[in-house]
């Protein structure tokens, strides 16, 4: 049975007196205890792969805007990855559709998606912590993050995945 250190979160063998990682006492009953935060602590501990990133839907840079929008609507997704030879070139999202295309859709429908995508978006790897994904979304003010292995996209997470995680952990803690 494992004993989780309240300070650093590392698993220790049940019955040890001190944490093998941080050396803090595991037996001091009068030690100030950090208030548990299932959502916060979970995000600090869990990796992005626990969100089960979705298989990315991709298209080539020359795909006409109209076709790209059609793919997004058909698949009910908020973003599409633009790739070439399995390498991530950019991302096109619902916000790009509204902000960069907007009311000019008819005039632009045949233009290649590469003209409207966000090139070289911020990416993460499946082993990165969820909290880091939250931080990146906050800095960049975007809601989708491609998950990559090297240059190759292998998944996508969205802010909705984060919200689902929050809800599950709030429910699990009864709060």
């Amino acid at each position: 049975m494992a004993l989780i250190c309240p300070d650093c979160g590392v698993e220790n063998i049940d019955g040890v007196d001190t944490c093998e990682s941080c050396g803090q006492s595991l037996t001091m009953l009068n030690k100030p205890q950090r208030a548990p935060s299932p959502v916060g602590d979970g995000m600090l501990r869990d990796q992005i792969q626990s969100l089960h990133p979705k298989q990315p839907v991709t298209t080539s840079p020359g795909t006409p805007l109209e076709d790209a929008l059609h793919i997004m609507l058909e698949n009910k997704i908020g973003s599409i990855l633009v790739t070439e030879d399995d390498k991530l070139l950019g991302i096109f999202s619902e916000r790009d559709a509204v902000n960069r295309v907007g009311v000019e859709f008819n005039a632009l429908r045949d233009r290649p998606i590469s003209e409207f995508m966000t090139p070289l978006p911020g990416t993460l790897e499946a082993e990165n912590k969820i909290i880091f994904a939250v931080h990146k979304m906050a800095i960049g003010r975007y809601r989708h993050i491609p998950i990559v292995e090297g240059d190759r996209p292998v998944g996508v997470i969205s802010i909705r995945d984060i919200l689902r995680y929050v809800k599950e952990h709030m429910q699990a803690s009864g709060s």
Partner: protein
Amino acid sequence: MSTDSSLPVLKATDFASDQEIRWCPGCGDYSILAQVKKVLPSIGVPLENTVFVSGIGCSSRFPYYMNTYGVHSIHGRAPAVATGLKTARPELFVWVITGDGDALSIGGNHLMHAIRRNLDINIILFNNEIYGLTKGQYSPTSPLGKVTKSTPMGAVDNPLHPLSIAIGCEGTFVARSIDMHIKHLGMVLSRAAEHKGTAFVEVYQNCNVFNDGAYTYATDRATKSDTVLELEHGKPLIFGKNRDKGIRLNGMDPEVVELGKGITEDDLLFHDEKAAEPSLAYLLSRMTHPEFPEPIGVFRAVDRPRYEEEVDQQVVEAKAKKGEGDLDALFRIGDTWEVS
């Protein structure tokens, strides 16, 4: 350090304070804290003679978590406070705990002079390539192009290499380790503690909230053999899963070569941590991923007179020449008056 056989034998747990640790779970700082606590008992200095001095930042919460004396000082000034402390109380075992922001932004000047003076103190710089406490701004060691809250279009500053700075400041002990390489970190901290003079140790430390994965290349089991080179004094620079790659000099420049195919160990660069000239150590400090494996271990370990000893000696000589001195009389030299 002198040891007194009548003193109790200390254990790592004796160095743990009763304070709640406020670092984020998963932070690399925990590993460094644990290794410092493991090393201290073997040095044999009593708790009451040990002081940890820090500045500002996540790293600088360190003194609260040690059951020793501590000073949580002001931003970037830990080396200055440590200089005063060690000069006035040379018998104390003084550590400076700082970060890439605290030491190399606001604290750059103080760090430079502490290293240059060669006080017998130990400086540990926790390098997470970000400002963590203030939630994610770029730091002097953040890579070019790094997008952060304060660099939305990517950093345009060339990053500093802490070890290059330390060597440039005439550091007598300069070393690097990694938070996840706990045995190696313990070894480096132990050597730093034993060094007579300023020991400067850079520790690659992961900030899992604001800069997660910055050092994955150096900690991932699949890659670390090819991306990290462990330095050993007197040994050739060899690395790789099969120890089949090495570093040799091509003119003045290091290059990565494959052993065999006409190249033997004798053709490689041999590490000399005791070299009087710091050129080799500086060259090693410039080797960065991905072009080179990044060296860890002791880059330089040389002897030079210590500042506090030299100052102490000057005080002794001054007293011998001019007597004990009278501070009260000194205050009253020249015109003084009372204001009523």
